[in-house]
């Protein structure tokens, strides 16, 4: 073999081979710079901005420390109502999604044969690729007062719920459903059939087996699914614009204050509410090991 030529590339290569720390530094510098500068600094500054204020005459931001925004957000009746409504919607969406995901995920993982299972996974994944707005818009058509739901329900004396909180809950449940089904499906899939048989051999009836054997095993996967539906619902404001009628969620208040009201500090203070709630939820469920199931 001829001796490698002493080109610059070769020299660089030799140097890097013997200096792993330099190699690491070169690899990590760019991504860390990007995420650190763009994202972390932005997040920290958002936190700081929440303690600033806006001059009501000039609209300029006044960078002196004040707790006014935080106090307004905590004590204001509007913010309390909207926070409760938002959390209520997020909880309802989460409960509905889990209730729908459990039977379909169980069927996919434990009842369907291989071929059906593959088809079902595609059928569940397909709407995930369809555009978010398209799906929200689709529900706007379905729930409209002249829409298909009214047409189907009218003969039996029912009515479409129209646009409002109920419509928001339905649409958000629909949007996040695949995100909840997939981790729960993976959870059921990991439960070995032999365990179910063992339980049955020991005399466990179906419900007993589900409750005492299956549920504890898939619990972290269920929690992982709820993180998606809960967190995604908390921050949403587009769906509620499309199907929510005049109802507002926290996201709407943030949006109005960034745009029309031009009060970025107040918007930042409002945005802290979902951040605090989500970190609280994550801390609550951390012990279940759900975070490794994401």
């Amino acid at each position, binding site marked *: 073999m001829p001796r*490698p030529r002493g080109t610059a*590339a070769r020299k660089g*290569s*030799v140097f890097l081979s013997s200096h*792993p720390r330099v*190699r690491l530094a070169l690899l*990590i510098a*760019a*991504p860390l710079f*990007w*995420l650190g500068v763009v*994202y972390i600094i*932005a997040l920290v*500054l*958002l936190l700081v*901005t929440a303690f600033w204020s806006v001059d009501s005459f000039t609209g300029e931001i006044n960078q002196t420390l004040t707790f006014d925004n935080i106090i307004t957000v905590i004590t204001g009746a509007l913010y309390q109502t909207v926070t409760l409504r938002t959390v209520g919607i997020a909880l309802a969406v989460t409960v509905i999604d889990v209730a*729908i995901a459990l*039977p*379909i995920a169980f*069927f*996919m993982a434990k*009842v369907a044969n291989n071929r059906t299972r593959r088809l079902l996974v595609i*059928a569940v994944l397909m*709407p995930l*690729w*369809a*555009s*978010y*707005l*398209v799906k929200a*818009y*689709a*529900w706007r*058509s*379905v729930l*409209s007062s*002249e*829409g*298909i739901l*009214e*047409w189907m329900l009218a003969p039996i004396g029912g009515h479409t719920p129209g646009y409002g909180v109920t419509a928001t809950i339905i649409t958000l449940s*629909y949007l996040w459903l695949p995100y909840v089904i997939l981790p729960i499906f993976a959870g059921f899939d990991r439960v070995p059939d032999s365990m*179910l*048989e063992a339980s*049955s051999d020991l005399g466990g*009836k*179906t419900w007993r087996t589900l409750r005492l*054997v299956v549920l504890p095993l898939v619990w972290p996967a269920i929690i992982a699914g709820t993180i998606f539906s809960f*967190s995604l619902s908390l*921050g949403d404001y*587009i769906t509620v614009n*499309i199907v929510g009628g005049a109802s507002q969620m926290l*996201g709407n208040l*943030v949006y109005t204050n960034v745009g029309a009201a031009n009060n*970025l500090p107040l*918007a930042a203070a409002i*945005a802290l509410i*979902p*951040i605090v709630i*989500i970190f609280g939820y994550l801390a609550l469920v951390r012990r279940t090991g759900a975070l490794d199931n994401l």
Partner: protein
Amino acid sequence: MRLGRGARITLGAITVLILGVIYLPLFVVGVNSFSTSQSLSWPPPGFTLEWWGKAFRSAGALEALLTSVQVAVVATAVALILGTLISLALQRFDFFGKNVVNLLVILPIALPGIVTGIALNNFFRTIMGVPLSIWTVVIAHGTFTIVTVFNNVIARLRRLGTSYEEASADLGAGIWTTFRLVTFPQLRSALFAGGLLAFALSFDEIIVTTFTAGQGVTTLPIFILNNMFRPNQAPIVSVIAVVLVLISIVPIYIAQRLTSEEGQKR
């Protein structure tokens, strides 16, 4: 636990029902795109191809599509480069603060879009004094799509191990040659899958985009949102919706092909 016939049939019926509910809205939009009604009324009073013709001649829609593709292409390129670098660093090295870096990559997608959106809006406008433009959208999209490439590439690196790279080094190949001829070819399909997801994520994103797009920057989701509530435009939005759903079959097909190929290789 042995499920009885009744239980199996019940579960099957529930599954079919849920799938029905999942596809009903998409079906309604499809039908509406051919309906003569402009107010989404059901059943459709008549059949027309007017909206399909109008949608394909709508300058606004085509321009928005072009903007979305441009943003998604650049954001995906950023995500591919940064995502690969950071997964190599996290998988091949042990260092202090590794967990923090890991969290840093996931955070932009774990926090609600509105938090990311307002944080970046605040950063660009108030702190940096940079006017919002198409580039601020690209930077924002690049930031939250890194994680999709990262997830795919790091999973692949974990499975590959380092033996091939060591063999290559033992045979006298330098670092660049090893990456070009050994590591990269093995990463290619993971990069493709991650890039596809990054592209789809960027193409569909609306919340962060709303907060970071400058005046006159209209991506397709922004165009849809702006036109959804206009009576004359609503049927055109239905057409765009149908086209988007049909286009979404392509990545599903490719992803399915990729996973089945992987399955055969192993």
